[in-house]
């Protein structure tokens, strides 16, 4: 009697190995299970899912790499410019608040003001500012209309975490993945800030009150 799909799965015959060996195994299984269409279909589906997962993983890594390379190209170009020009781009082109730049790069606002006027930033700070500016450029390139707004939008309802919180050296490509909807917010949060559910949970939200000013209210109660 031919094996059932469940029996085949429990033996995990086709859950390992390269795609080539999986294909060979599938051929064998087709022979074994001739006449048992459920089992055959199950084998084929599992095999396709395995292959797709492997391919998706490769594509994701390649895609991320391309984002990282794009940021690096922009950053190299920005590092050839005076720092005041880079800071000017952040403020006058992208409309980013100094406090957000300071938080994302890990420096103080007065330091940014000083560097904008008279330079003098250390090489690592210049590098981080160039990478941040490159990040904004790439956000625009991938279709984010207003990158400075996007970084302040909560990733998931019920949590205060925004892309601004997640940005750090090395995380830019993952955030571009998020911006392009190539990855879910939960996936990127698990990757970049695994304790996000405890660190950023909130029962409150900011709404526009009747007087037109922002107000903090409990969620689900609204402002009505």
């Amino acid at each position, binding site marked *: 009697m031919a094996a059932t799909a469940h029996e085949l799965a429990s033996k995990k015959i086709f859950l390992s190995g390269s795609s080539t060996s999986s294909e060979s195994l599938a051929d064998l299984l087709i022979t074994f299970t001739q006449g048992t269409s459920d089992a055959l279909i199950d084998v084929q589906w599992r095999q396709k899912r395995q292959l797709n997962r492997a391919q998706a993983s490769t594509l994701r890594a390649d895609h991320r790499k391309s984002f990282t390379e794009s940021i690096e190209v922009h950053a190299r170009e920005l590092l050839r410019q005076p720092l005041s020009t880079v800071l*000017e781009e952040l*403020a*006058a*082109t*992208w*409309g*980013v*608040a*100094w*406090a957000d730049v*300071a*938080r994302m790069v890990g420096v*103080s*606002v*007065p330091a940014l*003001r*000083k560097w904008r*006027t008279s330079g003098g930033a250390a090489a690592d700070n210049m590098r981080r500012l160039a990478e941040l500016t490159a990040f904004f450029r790439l956000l625009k390139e991938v279709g984010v209309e*207003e*990158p*400075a*707004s996007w970084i*302040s*939008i909560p990733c998931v309802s019920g949590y*205060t*975490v925004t892309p601004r*919180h997640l940005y750090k050296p090395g995380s830019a490509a993952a955030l571009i993945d998020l911006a392009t909807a190539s990855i879910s917010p939960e996936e990127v949060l698990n990757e970049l800030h695994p304790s996000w559910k405890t660190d*950023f*949970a*909130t*029962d*409150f*939200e*900011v709404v*526009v009150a009747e007087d*037109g*000013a*922002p*107000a*903090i209210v409990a969620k689900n109660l609204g402002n009505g």
Partner: protein
Amino acid sequence: MADRLEPLLSPEELFDYRQCSEGGVPFWLPYSQGDVFEQVVMPGIENDEPGLAMLFMHPCTMREGARLREAVTAVRVTFNDSRVLPKPGTWANRNKLMPLPDLFGNGESTYVADFMLLGTVQSASLDRARRVSQLSAEGRLILQQRLIFHLTRHAPSVDVLQEASHSLELELQAQTDWMEEANKRGLIGSSEDVDEQEVVFDEYMSAPMDSTGSEAEARPESRRTLLAHPREAPMVVRDVQRKIKTL
């Protein structure tokens, strides 16, 4: 939701400007919640002796147009310890105050803003030239959280506070950029000049957004109103930056 107070920041993160820091506290800096001044008389407190006081009123309400209101609320700032006490544990369960470690930037002491010593002062007594410190944006959020906790025993998340006050923070930064550029261009030589530039800035922010010299569409709303909308705020930031170049 935060269920407890945020850990206190290091002095370097808590303050943007202090007297002893490089460049001191520029006298053209816009007034901001948490600014500490010296030689302030607080009626009914400490026998009306002049001392340190923190500008306390919420940034939404401290101004009337471009100017500070004639009377504003302030909190007495007192000496606490001869050491700098930035460690978070130091301040556990001490909820009636805002710690100000290394207020003077000389590494020698800790002061506190005492929420129990709250009063109204003439804004004229908050002399720009006698400003001792200005908190950072994060420092102001810590102050707001501690104040709310003191009054209600509820500690809202600083992220929620940040979202609620974001447009005010953006305007404060834009105004600081404006004043800094005006100072650089020699437009500010006195306190009166600062007042004058603040009026010009206020008028600019109160005016509808026009499309002159910018890629932005003309809008009937004022720049200040647009700044409160997250999607429009960057457009206003860009617009102000362009305007600053023409001062």
